[in-house]
């Protein structure tokens, strides 16, 4: 029965309920911030870690792959600690103190693959958002398998051949952005 609050939180994340997201942030962020800032991080790092923590939980909730045996506070703490530890390791910082950090001792059910996938997709999505709106649109329409003539009409372009060309150019631009990102080279 105790887990009912957990459920409403998880459902809120899964449904992207803004009110619940706001409440989660107000209730739990200060703990995450303290953990990150006590371990070589800035407030911005704490916000990034918290955000990715919620997104990893969202991905897990969407797949029905979440099992909360403790309070949500412990859970998000565990997930964020896992993320921050990975990032400290990448930055070649010492994680000894963080490992000894047992304020909310919990082993998160986050796998390395889930973490890696989230990091990679975050990078791709960041650069996707850098593309011009038209480029974003044409790529998404293609991927949604909208017929070429409809894409041309939506985009207000007469030549279907030109639409294809544009799609290719946009994708190449996106791949270039990604490959030039130092974080991509680290992966």
């Amino acid at each position, binding site marked *: *029965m*105790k*887990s*009912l*609050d957990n*459920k*409403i*939180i998880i*459902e*809120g994340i899964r*449904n*992207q*309920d*803004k*009110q*619940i*997201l*706001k*409440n*989660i*942030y*107000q*209730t739990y*962020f*200060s703990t995450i*911030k303290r953990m990150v800032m006590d371990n070589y991080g800035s407030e911005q790092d704490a*916000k990034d870690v*918290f*955000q990715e923590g*919620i*997104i990893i939980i*969202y*991905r897990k909730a*969407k797949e*029905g792959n979440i099992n909360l045996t403790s309070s949500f*506070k412990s859970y998000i703490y565990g997930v964020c600690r896992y993320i921050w530890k990975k990032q400290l390791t990448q930055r070649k910082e010492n994680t000894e103190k963080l490992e000894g950090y047992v304020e909310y001792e919990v082993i998160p059910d986050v796998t390395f693959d889930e973490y890696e996938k989230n990091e*990679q*997709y*975050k990078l*791709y*999505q960041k650069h*996707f*958002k850098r593309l011009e709106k038209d480029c*974003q649109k044409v*790529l*998404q329409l*293609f*991927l*949604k398998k909208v017929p070429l003539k409809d894409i041309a009409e939506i985009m207000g372009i007469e030549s279907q051949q030109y639409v294809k060309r544009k799609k*290719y150019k946009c*994708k*190449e631009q*996106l*791949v270039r952005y*990604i490959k030039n990102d130092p974080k991509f080279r680290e992966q």
Partner: protein
Amino acid sequence: MEDKYEKIEQYLMNELSIREQVKFEEDLRKDPELRREYELRKEINDAIQEDDVMELRDSLDQVMKKQPVFSNKTRKIYLISSVAAALVVILVISSKVFFSAGSQKSSALYERYYEVYPVIMSFRSTNEGAEEKDLLYKAFASYDIKDYNQASQYFESIAQQDSTNYLSRFYLSICKIETNKLNEAEDYLSELTVKNNHIFWEQAHWYLAMVYVKKDKQNKAREILHKIVQQNMAKKKEAKDILKSMK
């Protein structure tokens, strides 16, 4: 190289003839570099189709930029300042005498701003034990068809089994408002506003203010509404509007 990339893109979009596909798949097996490039481009396609994740990231950006976060320490300071502000307001108001038209005004405000809190989740997919699921299911089903007396009973049984169950206490308080048991609603909501360790903390403030408005306890309503505004809680705009109307 560009040709290679174009082939990969055509393959990913199913734009190759069957013969070309077979040839491409053969190349993929033989050429590890081509394989890596193919995997990358395929992953990029998957990633940029995640509209939902990108939207969630945008929502979180908004939430985290807009909202001040209160540590326990600052929350205490806020609490003290909001109580102080409320006291000032009370002093100013008490010098004005509270009109007989007050109660009429309050009931109009209540009618205008009060809305029953929606059922915000579906429990169909939960893995709770049968008994718990059953109780909750019945509670929300009754709540959904506006049978608040019945829903009250179910939420009460859940709350009795687990005193830390904020969800059931919050919904129970709404049932109490709906069945006009305002004193009980006030008790439950007051309890829910003490600690911010649950997700109904802000909503509980709003509904507590609504209870005070309905009971025509204007000073108490003001106190809570000021706190909602000062701490940037949910319903801040409505709280401001009510405070203006109350002047």
